[in-house]
């Protein structure tokens, strides 16, 4: 090269050196020989610093990956991911889009940052036949839309795998898909209504100001016709839901607020179009469009609130670990729990929850199964024992072979049932719908009255005034009140640790009746604590030193007594106890027989009135004692009882525990003994609830399996945190935090919600009465209606959104 020989000319100019940041060629004159990173300009250098400083250097890696893979078509091994093309897989996971394309959700491993989103969504450029890939970064879920006559899912999966994102089947695709498309539809309708409203408002503003300043006739006519066009679009597209609702209500012979709304929309639009074409008379499109937009917005908000509560319950991850350790021939690999298949062996380590239903294939441990049974005492699990998903391993690492995964596990089934129940729930006739009938009648009556009153003046003014009446008394604010108050209340409740499954809960809680409370886990902690002991402090400290080496749940109860003594030669005997040497003396703790045989001592009999779990401690010197473990009353229980009573609820205890234990708790809470029933079976609990239902509403607060039917039968069922499977399925309210105060919060909040709804209804009805009077008198002008209507709606919106319904009764611990 002649250039290379010239002084000042760089030989690198001829070799292409890409910029580290933008990968365009670096001008030869800018290449730095010793530098690892090369930049084509200062901006790229700074940008590179920003990307690396932000911890996003993975961006460069995936970009290179893409360049490599995009260059040639996939030549992956056909056998890999062949299961994705399997008919059974397709039936279970692949859904059809309306235009015949296949849609499937896949879980991806290794999705980390925005660059991953960018890369994965490049898929349609790499695999022909793929139309769209949308990655949900939060859930590592990619939704792939492809034409299955052009490419196969296995081919797409292989490319994803080669890009570094191993794909796995995801569940619940159809459900999510339906919800998303419904969501999108609602959003589009809302947007169309909003756009129409905005345009009509502009035109209306011009027309109204034209009325004052004077506007030439052609412009005025044009503006009115344009308004009519926008108005028609708003009524016929997003507005048709109200006509459909009214039609359905008529067919079902029930009263619904959609009926007066549809009437107002119909008459207003008809008159408006007629007058716009005629070129005289009032057009009401500003009011009509605003009506449609506000009502749709309120409905959307409410649905979103209810759904986000439902989503939180639906999430399996609240009960199951999102990732699992799969045991493979080359070692243990972490994969998403949803990616497991039946037959896989998973490793479950201490402190983790089991991701599958299955049998233990190696190891033994204790499992806390309270998520399913409500029983706080961990159960021992040996080789071959069945473990359910959601059970928490408390001791040692075990291997479990999966027999059911995801939604097929017991926990999964519960989640599915909850979803189904919430979808099938019969709508509770709300306050607003209850007044729909009388309201509709009143409107018809007033319309007839107006028509009759103005008919002597001629057909035209009579018709004009009737139309004006129908539009101004349209129950816009009325229909806004309940959904908005409930939507904001459900959101506030969720932030306060209360998942409310439906807006009707507030109204159901409105009238007090009988409140039944479960004891174990609801009024009490439902966990072990040392309630009594006949042990010297020195021996207790030695026991604590030994238990420090144990992960058995009982060991935790000794933590407060640990004084840091050194324990050596500690040996565990599963199911029996622990022994070792503390400060030079042999100490044993555990079952009576274990302690006696280990140390060769004889322990005297304990007091006869002791019940619960007894743990024996002794040392070789002959010091010995017994510790009684039991359940203790929650500190906030008394406060809850007070709140319930102050609201007029009769408080009673229903418990499966022994009568003596229940009576003891009742005495502490100042509940008369005859109101506290012990030794109750699930059937007798249900019976008690049914009996009480004859006298009025019943609230059931509980968390055990034996509470489930009672929770379902009660007017309102409240499942406390860590509740059992059936109670979760049946309850209306679920506490996400294990705090009884939240029940008080719920009760107070519900009252506040009802108050807000009443206030909003009162405001909107007052407005309607004023507007109707004006309209009948023929005083109302379109401008006046156009001002009055948004003012009333905005008042209601402001009232419903500004009120705080759920105040935490105390600060977070």
């Amino acid at each position, binding site marked *: 090269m002649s*250039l*290379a020989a010239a002084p*000042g*000319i*760089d*030989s*690198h*100019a*001829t070799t*292409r050196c890409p*910029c580290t*940041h*933008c*990968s*365009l*060629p670096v*001008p*030869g*004159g*800018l290449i730095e020989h010793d530098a690892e990173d090369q930049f*084509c*300009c*200062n*901006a*790229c*250098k*700074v*940008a590179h*610093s*920003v*990307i690396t*400083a*932000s911890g*996003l250097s993975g*961006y460069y890696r995936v*970009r290179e990956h*893409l360049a490599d893979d*995009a260059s040639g078509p996939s030549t992956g091994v056909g056998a890999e991911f062949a299961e994705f093309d399997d008919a059974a897989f397709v039936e279970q996971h692949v859904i059809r889009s309306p235009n015949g394309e296949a849609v499937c959700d896949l879980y991806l491993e290794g999705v980390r*940052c*925005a*660059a991953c*989103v*960018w890369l994965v*969504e*490049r898929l*349609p*450029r790499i695999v022909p036949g793929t139309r769209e890939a*949308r*990655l*949900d*970064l*939060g859930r590592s879920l990619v939704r792939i839309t492809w034409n299955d006559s052009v490419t196969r899912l296995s081919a797409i999966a292989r490319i994803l795998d080669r890009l570094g994102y191993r794909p796995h089947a995801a569940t619940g695709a159809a459900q999510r898909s339906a919800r998303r498309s419904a969501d999108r539809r609602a959003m589009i309708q809302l947007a169309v209504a909003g756009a129409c409203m905005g345009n009509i408002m502009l035109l209306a503003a011009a027309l109204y100001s034209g009325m004052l300043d004077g506007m*030439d006739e*052609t*412009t005025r006519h044009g503006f009115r016709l344009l308004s009519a066009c926008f108005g028609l679009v708003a009524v016929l597209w997003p507005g048709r839901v109200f006509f459909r609702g009214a039609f359905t209500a008529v067919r079902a012979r029930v009263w619904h607020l959609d009926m007066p709304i549809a009437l107002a929309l119909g008459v207003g639009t008809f008159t408006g179009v007629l007058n716009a074409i005629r070129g005289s008379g009032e057009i009401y499109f500003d009011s009509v469009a605003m009506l449609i937009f506000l009502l749709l917005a309120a409905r959307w908000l409410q649905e979103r609130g209810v759904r986000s509560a439902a989503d939180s319950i639906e999430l399996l991850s609240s009960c199951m670990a999102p990732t699992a350790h799969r045991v493979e021939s080359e070692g243990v690999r972490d994969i998403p729990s949803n990616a497991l298949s039946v037959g896989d062996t998973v490793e479950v380590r201490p402190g983790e929850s089991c991701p599958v239903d299955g049998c233990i294939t190696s190891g033994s441990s204790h499992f806390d199964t309270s998520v399913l049974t409500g029983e706080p005492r961990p159960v021992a699990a040996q080789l071959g024992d069945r473990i359910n998903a959601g059970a928490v391993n408390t001791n040692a690492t075990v291997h479990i072979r999966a027999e059911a995964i995801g939604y097929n596990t017991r926990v999964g089934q519960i989640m599915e049932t909850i979803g189904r129940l919430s979808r099938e729930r019969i709508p509770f006739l709300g306050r607003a719908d209850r007044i729909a009938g009388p309201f509709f009648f009143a409107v018809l009556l007033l319309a007839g009255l107006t028509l009759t009153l103005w008919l002597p003046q001629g057909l035209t003014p009579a018709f004009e005034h009737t139309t004006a009446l129908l539009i101004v008394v349209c129950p816009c604010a009325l229909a806004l009140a309940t959904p908005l108050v409930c939507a904001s209340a459900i959101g506030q409740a969720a932030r306060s640790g209360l998942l409310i499954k439906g807006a009707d809960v507030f109204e159901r809680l409105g009238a007090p009746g009988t409140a039944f409370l479960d004891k174990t886990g609801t009024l009490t902690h439902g966990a072990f604590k040392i309630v009594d002991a006949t042990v010297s402090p020195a021996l207790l400290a030695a026991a604590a030193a030994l238990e420090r080496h144990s992960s058995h749940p009982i060991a935790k109860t000794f933590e407060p007594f640990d004084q840091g003594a050194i324990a050596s030669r500690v040996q565990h005997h599963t199911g029996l106890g622990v022994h070792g040497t503390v400060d030079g003396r042999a100490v044993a703790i555990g079952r009576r027989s274990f302690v006696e045989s280990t140390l060769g001592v004889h322990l005297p009999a304990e007091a006869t009135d002791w019940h619960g779990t007894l743990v024996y401690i002794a040392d070789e010197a002959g010091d010995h004692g017994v510790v009684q473990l039991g359940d203790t009353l929650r500190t906030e229980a008394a406060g809850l009882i007070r709140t319930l009573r102050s609201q007029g609820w009769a408080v009673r205890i229903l418990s499966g525990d022994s009568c003596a234990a229940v009576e003891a708790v009742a005495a502490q809470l100042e509940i008369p003994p005859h109101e506290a029933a012990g030794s109750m079976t699930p059937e007798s609990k249900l019976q008690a609830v049914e009996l009480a239902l004859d006298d009025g509403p019943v609230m059931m607060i509980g968390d055990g399996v034996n509470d489930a039917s009672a929770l379902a039968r009660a007017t309102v069922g409240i499942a406390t945190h860590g509740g059992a499977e059936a109670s979760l399925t049946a309850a209306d309210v679920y506490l996400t935090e294990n705090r009884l105060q939240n029940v008080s919060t719920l009760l107070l909040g519900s009252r506040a919600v009802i108050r807000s709804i009443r206030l909003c209804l009162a405001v909107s009805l007052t407005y309607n009465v004023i507007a109707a009077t004006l309209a009948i008198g023929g005083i109302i002008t379109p401008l006046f209606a156009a001002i009055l209507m948004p003012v009333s709606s905005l008042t209601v919106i402001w009232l419903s959104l500004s009120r705080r319904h759920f105040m935490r009764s105390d600060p977070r611990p």
Partner: protein
Amino acid sequence: MNAELLAIMGGVVAASVVGSLHCAGMCGAFVAMAVGIDTRVPRVRLHSAYNLGRLAIYTGIGIVCGSLGGALNIGGDLLGLEQAAIGLAATTMIVIGVVSLLRVAGVRLPRVHSPRAIELVYIRLHTAARRLSPTVRAGVIGLLTGLLPCGWLWAFALLAAGTAHPVAGALVMAAFWLGTLPVLVAVGAGIREVTGRLGAAAPIAMALVIVALGVSTTMQRSKLAFSSFGGEGAANTLPVGLPNHDEPLPCCHSKPDRGSAR
């Protein structure tokens, strides 16, 4: 708006489209950070926020540079130099373009590094932006994009200074923004291949475009006069005695007569 300014803006859009190949590589990562991070927010909103952020900073730069150019003209006027700003801008652009071409050819020339302190401030701003809500973050990343020491961007800022008027400067930069829009939206939407084959020639193409813009600006120099721009208020900040200032802008004299439709 006079025809010369329109012509320059047209040229800027075209040049900007050519150079946006560089933008795709340069800003691709930032676009990914802006629009790719949160899938719960509609992409359209994030794209809009990012690109509006860019538009805001670019027009801001245009206003500042235009004003500086105006001040330079006043100073030049006192020294007896007519239209100092545009002359200086055009010359600088030609120099930048030639230097770039020489560098592509492999000639080693002294280079100016951006100070590390500024780099650190920039990184800190980006880190702070990551804590914002997705839409605001996209907008702020867009704003920060305009602050990169990008030679290509600042070549247009020079041109904006050459107009010697804040509004004209803003319009030039808005035109630059318009030219980069297709590629940056495409990059965000997933079309990266635009940079692939053409990318290799980008440095040469860009250097040539800068030179061409500089040369054409010099040729237009005598015709360019933005003194009439913005009406009377602007006249105070501009030297008197420039040609064309008696001709009002089309937007001024064709102001719709409200009564005419009657």
